[in-house]
């Protein structure tokens, strides 16, 4: 149990770190160019690749946390058993999505590996820079399997949806809870 919690925390740390590094890279490049007339020639490719890692690596975490927006008006109206049955269909369909992308990513990365194609500015091969496709969709598949197990065992009845709205608000409540007294 604690290992899983540790892994979850690690995942969150990586996501936060990717965002911080991405922001700093663009910030530093801008400041260097404006302030010192100096340029970093791998900054553009570097920041775009980091963005790809950020989104794909983080997408699976959103499935667990329920940060992806969805519509549950219809499924909520269903009785319990039917709702879980529909949820199983939904998760299996998403597993199909992840599986197709996993396969496609594998073929693509394999081709890049065989060609030995380098990145344009970053000193690394394309397959390595794009390997997050496999990692990201792999993690998505993993989260979906866990969700499926939870639904079958009756511990969940569908995708958790905290809407962006709830998310924004929870964040507010969490950070404002302890400062009620400020003028």
């Amino acid at each position: 149990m604690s290992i899983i919690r540790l892994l979850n925390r690690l995942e969150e740390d990586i996501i936060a770190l990717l965002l911080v590094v991405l922001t700093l890279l663009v910030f530093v490049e801008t400041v260097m160019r404006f302030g010192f007339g100096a340029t970093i020639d791998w900054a553009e490719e570097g920041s775009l690749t980091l963005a790809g890692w950020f989104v794909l690596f983080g997408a699976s975490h959103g499935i667990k946390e329920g940060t992806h927006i969805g519509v549950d008006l219809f499924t909520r109206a269903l009785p319990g058993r039917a709702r879980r049955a529909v949820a199983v269909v939904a998760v299996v369909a998403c597993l199909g999505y992840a599986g197709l992308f996993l396969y496609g990513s594998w073929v693509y990365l394999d081709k890049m590996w065989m060609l030995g194609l380098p990145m344009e500015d970053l000193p690394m091969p394309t397959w390595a820079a794009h390997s997050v496709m496999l990692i990201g969709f792999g993690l998505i598949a993993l989260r979906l399997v866990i969700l499926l197990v939870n639904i079958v065992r009756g511990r969940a009845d569908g995708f958790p949806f905290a809407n962006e709205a709830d998310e924004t608000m929870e964040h507010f409540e969490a950070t404002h809870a302890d400062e009620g007294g400020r003028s």
Partner: protein
Amino acid sequence: MTTAFLFILLFGAMLIGIPVALSLGLSSIVTILLFSNDSLASIALKFFSAASDHYTLLAIPFFILSSAFLSTGGVAERLIDFANNCVGHIKGGLAMASVLACMLFAAVSGSSPATVAAIGSLVIAGMAKAGYPEKFAAGAIANAGTLGILIPPSIVMLVYSAATQTSAAKMFMAGLIPGIMMGGILMLAIYIAARVMDLPRLPFPGFRTLFGSAARASGGLMLIVIVLGAIYGGVASPTEAAAVSAIYAFLVSALVYRDIGPLKATPWRHEGESNATAVARNAVQMLVAVPRSAWHPDMRETVLSAAKTSIMLLFIIANAMLFAHVLTTERIPHHIAEAIVSWGLPAWGFLIVVNILLLVAGNFMEPSAILLIMAPILFPIAMQLGIDPIHLGVIMVVNMEIGMITPPVGLNLFVTAGITNRSLGWAMSAALPWLGLMLIFLLLITYIPQISLFLPEILG
């Protein structure tokens, strides 16, 4: 046939509770698999390219990060104070001040729900306490909050720019006058309602207090200067300005206001401390605080929440781009465009069609996804009819604003319901009376292009 399949699959997937992003991706990849020769490998490549090829879209996580620091770091409260001191003494002034605060926050944040959350969570309760009907207060904020995407910076405008290769800087410029105008219309409506409903007013606090609150809010107000100044003063592109604004927002909230982070509750000056010691102590503490922030739970919390929201949005965008890619390979925009062109509509008629399409779409979908799907279809026709790409962009953004306060998918309604602890239905009925104003505003924007084009044209 393929089109019908694609859309049925999309709505079917959303209906059975699959998240919007996955619904878009799933319907796209299945359609490709069944109806086209494209390989799964190239679809994976296209997807990665959607997530990592658009420099303009990088501004989204940066503006969200900056908003997160601002809203947790006490900037919103200070903006409200300032707005209150400005217009609070007019009849209905508290509500007008709230709209003004929304406009100010909109000028530092790129997102509408963030604007409602930041301002609404503080002012709706305050207005109710001051004797306003809560529904009136909530409705005003839900509407004023939509300005988050019209007044620059704007996430939705960035998406439009990426989808149509239009200049994001020009889009930002184009949103400024319409944004101020919409804010003005809302304030005017509030003033009239305030007379009719006999709503309360605050006493004028005096210029001393007004300037004092302006000074306290200056950390936030400066950000407007920094973002717009950086873009139009020749320092940075919108993406770069967004990164600068995120770093600035961190520094202001952690080191200056000290509402979050390692210096929380550390005063600028201890009692009886001499000037020299205070300066030296603060200098050292602030230097140390920057690296210490990396391990501070407040910072981790703020960055992580911004990261989650950003990923959610960017993941929808990446999947929506894949969806748009399927539309393109199936030549669907081409066919729809041909059909619309064959109706021989004049520009004004086409714009009616555009508004209806977008208003309907706005009921069901998230703005970025709508723009990514609709812009490639509508853009080429608009170009043929001689409609300015920037004008079309502003029309689309105003439609997206309206979509935020219409059910069932309306982000501002969700947030409003959340911060007031009311039902979605209550939030809907609170926002509804204001909808007419938004529609009139949409008409003005649609048929008076100069409102949008005036600034971009005189500035370049």
